[in-house]
């Protein structure tokens, strides 16, 4: 498969034909269905999706953190020329934390409650670098300061539960950055935070790319967050990629009915208030009950005959769309609405 049209020249991470399934009593459940994507050097890629879309499992697969013995992971995850899926656990452990770091939605579960923040960052530094305890502590305090934590030396002596949510998230980012990773995977890093704190954390992630030259995979359900800091967007639905492209294009001209619906269902902060919010009927399917053909088809206003088959990713310039409406050109929604879904006309 040739590289994506929109991917930057220098590729850091290249995920090819990744599938993740779990064996269960009810047979094999497919969570991720054959997805490919890449992340360029110094790029912020947002992966957007709702619950059950497989966005978090994708990131866990990249980190090789799926430890369930019933998991079946297929495909390849090429990072700097090496296939992560073929590394032995020791090599992977060496890479994890040093080269690829991850931050989670809830820092409380990602940190141990029984050691201080400073101790935890220190340990992470010493696991990957030959530094004395004292030097590692100094570096930890320095990092906490860089993350905008007031009185960092004092904060380093605190336990996770003694810090506020925003401060904990900063401490976790400090820990993730302690070894200058080339790739940071941030899984819903601001979902549990208030908007004013969210803005600060997003600014921090942006700075990371600027100051450290890191690439970022930002996993979120929030199109607002996507609009604020990403370069490229990949929209996932039911374990597949439904749309991908540079952020300005995807947000200005969403070309998959799901992306369109997602954007339209956000109440606007400016301009006319719609009498009714355009909403997508139903809810995202559970992995055990995914429909045949196009996974979005049961909720789609624009459903037509070909949708019984699974659409490939059609390419138009830098934008890719998995919808038969986009087979020849990007869909013109006013036109499509007029001919296919007269009832849905707003």
């Amino acid at each position, binding site marked *: 498969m040739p590289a994506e049209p929109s991917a930057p020249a220098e590729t850091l991470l290249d995920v090819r034909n990744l599938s993740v399934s779990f064996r269960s009593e009810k047979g094999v459940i497919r969570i991720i269905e054959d997805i490919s994507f890449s992340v360029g050097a110094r790029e912020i890629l947002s992966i957007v999706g709702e619950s059950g879309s497989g966005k978090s499992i994708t990131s866990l697969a990249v980190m090789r953190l799926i430890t369930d013995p019933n998991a079946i992971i297929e495909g390849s995850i090429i990072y700097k020329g090496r296939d992560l899926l073929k590394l032995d656990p020791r090599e992977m452990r060496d890479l994890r934390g040093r080269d690829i770091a991850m931050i989670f939605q809830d820092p409380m579960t990602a940190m141990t409650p029984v050691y201080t923040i400073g101790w935890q960052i220190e340990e992470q530094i010493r696991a990957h670098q030959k530094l004395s305890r004292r030097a590692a502590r100094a570096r930890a305090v320095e990092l906490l300061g860089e993350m905008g934590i007031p009185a960092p030396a004092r904060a380093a002596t605190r336990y996770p539960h003694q810090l506020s949510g925003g401060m904990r998230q900063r401490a976790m980012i400090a820990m993730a950055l302690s070894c200058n990773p080339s790739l940071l995977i941030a899984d819903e890093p601001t979902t549990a935070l208030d*908007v004013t704190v969210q*803005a*600060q954390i997003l600014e921090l992630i942006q700075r990371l790319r600027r100051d450290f030259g890191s690439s970022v995979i930002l996993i979120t359900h929030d199109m607002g967050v996507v609009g*604020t800091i990403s370069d490229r967007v990949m929209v996932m639905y039911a374990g597949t990629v439904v749309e991908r492209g540079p952020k300005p294009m995807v947000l200005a001209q969403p070309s998959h009915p799901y992306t369109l619906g*997602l954007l339209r269902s*956000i109440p606007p902060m400016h301009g006319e208030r719609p009498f009714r919010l355009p909403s997508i009927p139903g*809810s995202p399917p559970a992995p055990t009950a995914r429909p045949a053909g196009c996974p979005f088809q049961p909720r789609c206003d624009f459903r037509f005959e070909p949708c019984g088959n699974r659409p490939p990713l059609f390419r138009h310039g830098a934008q890719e769309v998995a919808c038969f409406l986009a087979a020849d050109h990007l869909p013109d929604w006013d036109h499509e609405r007029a001919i296919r879904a007269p009832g849905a006309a707003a």
Partner: protein
Amino acid sequence: MSGTRPTMLHAASVTKRFRVGSRFRTGGVQIVHALTDVSLDVFPGETVGLVGESGCGKSTLGRCLLRLYSIDDGRIAFQGKDITNLSQRELRPLRAEMQMVFQDPYSSLNPRRRVGDLIAEPLRVHGKRSEADVQNRLRELMELVNLSPDFLQRFPHEFSGGQRQRIGIARAIAMSPRLVVADEPVSALDVSVQAQIVNLFMDLQQKLGLTYVFIAHDLSVVRQIATRTAVMYLGGIVEIGDTDTVLHSPAHPYTAALISAVPEPDPHGNIRARTILRGEPPSPTNPPSGCRFHTRCPIAQERCGVEVPVLRPLDPGRRVACHFPLQSGEVAGHG
């Protein structure tokens, strides 16, 4: 406050404190000043949005308004009747008229009971209805919240988040209340489902003439649903007025900062274009002197640290608690 229009709910100078900790633990007993001198009138048929960040007291206020919490000071009247000091038993007949919808549809429904029984519970507790009557009402309610009557026999775990929230709403409106306090009813839902539930709230209001107090941290949801909006910070209302006025030309610096922080799906969005509020809200156990926002306020002056600003009328339909309210247009540069 003009008292000519009859209020659905009238809250005057409500103060609520919580004791946390224990004298046997380090730190000892501390007092959380959850609400300080909060006054709010809710008029029939309107939707008042309560917004603010976590810990600002919006949920506490919601619960105090329904007297789910007792209050330490102030007065609350529901439809002209003083309910400040009523006992829970005395409140019970009034409960049919004021209901609450909770954030988490996963934990607010008993997993061991069938949906039909869950929704029927208020009908059986309050009314002297016959069983046939209860069953009719159940069907009616399911239709109102767009769920199939077949679902009545199922258990909560068989439903998606959006459906569970519909069940929670059906339960709240079962007794035909006049007032519904909804505490973050859509924040736990997927975005595509959120819009459905917001629409449902608006439909029900129209059909049943409900009055809402809608608590949310998401400004765009509040903008969609609320006729008036109250912005809270650290236990007090800092600005209240018509939603359009408050959100389009905020007068309080905190309102302005909050609006600026809302991320929008803007194709050319950029974090640097925002005014970012520094720091985090101070602890409500030890609120700052004077204006409680002065420690983070970009335009704070000496007076702000000393003198508590009162909520005063700024222009028709809006009141603000700030010594130096912003003039309209001052927060341009956003959007």
